[in-house]
């Protein structure tokens, strides 16, 4: 047990980089570090990572060192504004508790059955169990999954007359999910398309602008939607900036009137 105390490790090792002090001069781009740190699936995942990274024996964890590195990671995560779940802090407290129990002198009569009394035992058990499920999850993730990796062909055949198919609610909820996902995809797709060109709008405004003022509503049409309105508005701002038009408003919130720069006020 005492050798765990004597081990001297760097402050932290991040992706193979040895850090001897508080991680301020990290050369890892903060965004990359943030992504990496935010990927931890919780305190057990982080601890398991640290143990693997340092090649520690999971059945004989040097708790003092691991706790120190764990704290350093938490500090980094806080520094990078990663929202820490309460479980991370709970684990920190647990590690502290294990440390303090390891520091307590052993009663002489317990020296021979130290293993059963190991304050680390419960943590090790939890870690091993969690790692086993991570291992299983990896297997599952590598399977060919219908809908992701496999699309079975099932031609739709009208059932024989009189045969009532079974329907369960889960199928219906899933169909709703599909409809919603598709409408979201479609929306995202529409935003990506550059349907309106500011240049076109600028030309339109200059073409239409005569001696009398134009109003914003005369320049947009319903089918262009919100995006059309935004682009038209940007075109107006651009023309104002170029001093090719002048904007007027008779009142607060009144319609914007667009006129030639030489428009004469009455």
């Amino acid at each position, binding site marked *: 047990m005492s050798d765990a105390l004597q081990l001297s490790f760097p402050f932290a090792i991040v992706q193979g980089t040895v850090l001897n002090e508080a991680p301020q001069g990290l050369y890892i781009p903060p965004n990359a570090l943030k992504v990496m740190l935010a990927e931890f699936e919780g305190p057990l995942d982080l601890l398991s990572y640290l143990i693997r990274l340092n090649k520690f024996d999971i059945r004989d964890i040097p708790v003092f060192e691991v706790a120190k590195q764990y704290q350093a990671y938490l500090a980094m995560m806080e520094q990078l504004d990663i929202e820490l779940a309460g479980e991370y802090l709970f684990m920190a407290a647990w590690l502290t508790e294990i440390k303090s129990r390891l520091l307590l002198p052993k009663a002489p009569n317990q020296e021979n059955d130290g293993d059963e009394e190991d304050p680390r035992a419960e943590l090790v058990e939890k870690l091993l169990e969690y790692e086993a499920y991570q291992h299983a999850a990896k297997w599952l993730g590598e399977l060919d999954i219908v809908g992701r990796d496999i699309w079975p062909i*099932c031609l739709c*055949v*009208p059932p024989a007359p009189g045969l009532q198919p079974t329907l369960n609610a889960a199928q219906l909820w899933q169909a709703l999910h599909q409809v919603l996902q598709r409408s979201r995809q479609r929306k995202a797709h529409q935003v990506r398309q550059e349907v309106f060109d500011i240049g076109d709008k600028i030309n339109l405004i200059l073409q239409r602008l005569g001696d009398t003022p134009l109003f914003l509503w005369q320049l947009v049409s319903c089918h262009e939607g919100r995006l059309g309105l935004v682009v038209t508005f940007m075109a107006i701002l651009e023309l104002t900036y170029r001093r090719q038009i002048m904007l007027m408003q008779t009142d607060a919130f009144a319609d914007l009137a667009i006129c030639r720069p030489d428009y004469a006020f009455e």
Partner: protein
Amino acid sequence: MRLNSVIGALLFSSDQPLTLEALWALVEADFPQHTRQDVAQVLTELEKRVTGWGLKLESNALGYRIQVAPDCLDWVHQLYEQTPPRLSRALLETLVIIAHRQPITRAEIEAIRGVSVSSALMNQLKNYDWIKAAGVKEVPGHPTLWVTTPRLLQDLGLPSKQALVAQLDKLVKQHETEEGIEVRAL
């Protein structure tokens, strides 16, 4: 990647007819060296290809679709007696839209799904006694309004239409909040 493969994969996996235009729109960007005419050519070849294998390429006003040849239907029905098939996506999506937005017209369903809804599909839902007509909408053309039936509630094990609509409402809200989370995470 060959055009044949992509057109084949699309036609075989689609649960509704696809027009030449729709097919072309799906592949156009990836096959710049091809034309609509090539797609039409692939369809002709595909038709020959499936003949004699219990399939046929059907084309009508709604588009092209691979279907089981009528003279093989008996065997398929026999298979379905043992393992009833899953209901098609098109059918389930149409049903859930009716359930959520009832009373609703077919045109309104199509607007939400973004694709046309065939008469065959509406008839199938009627035959299963999951939807029924409930008057017409007071707009030009007087389209039929569709609602769900007590049979649907019974098959789903739900106590009332209100419970069904409330559950669907809940799922839509859930979807919206999750979408919000996702956007923020990006």
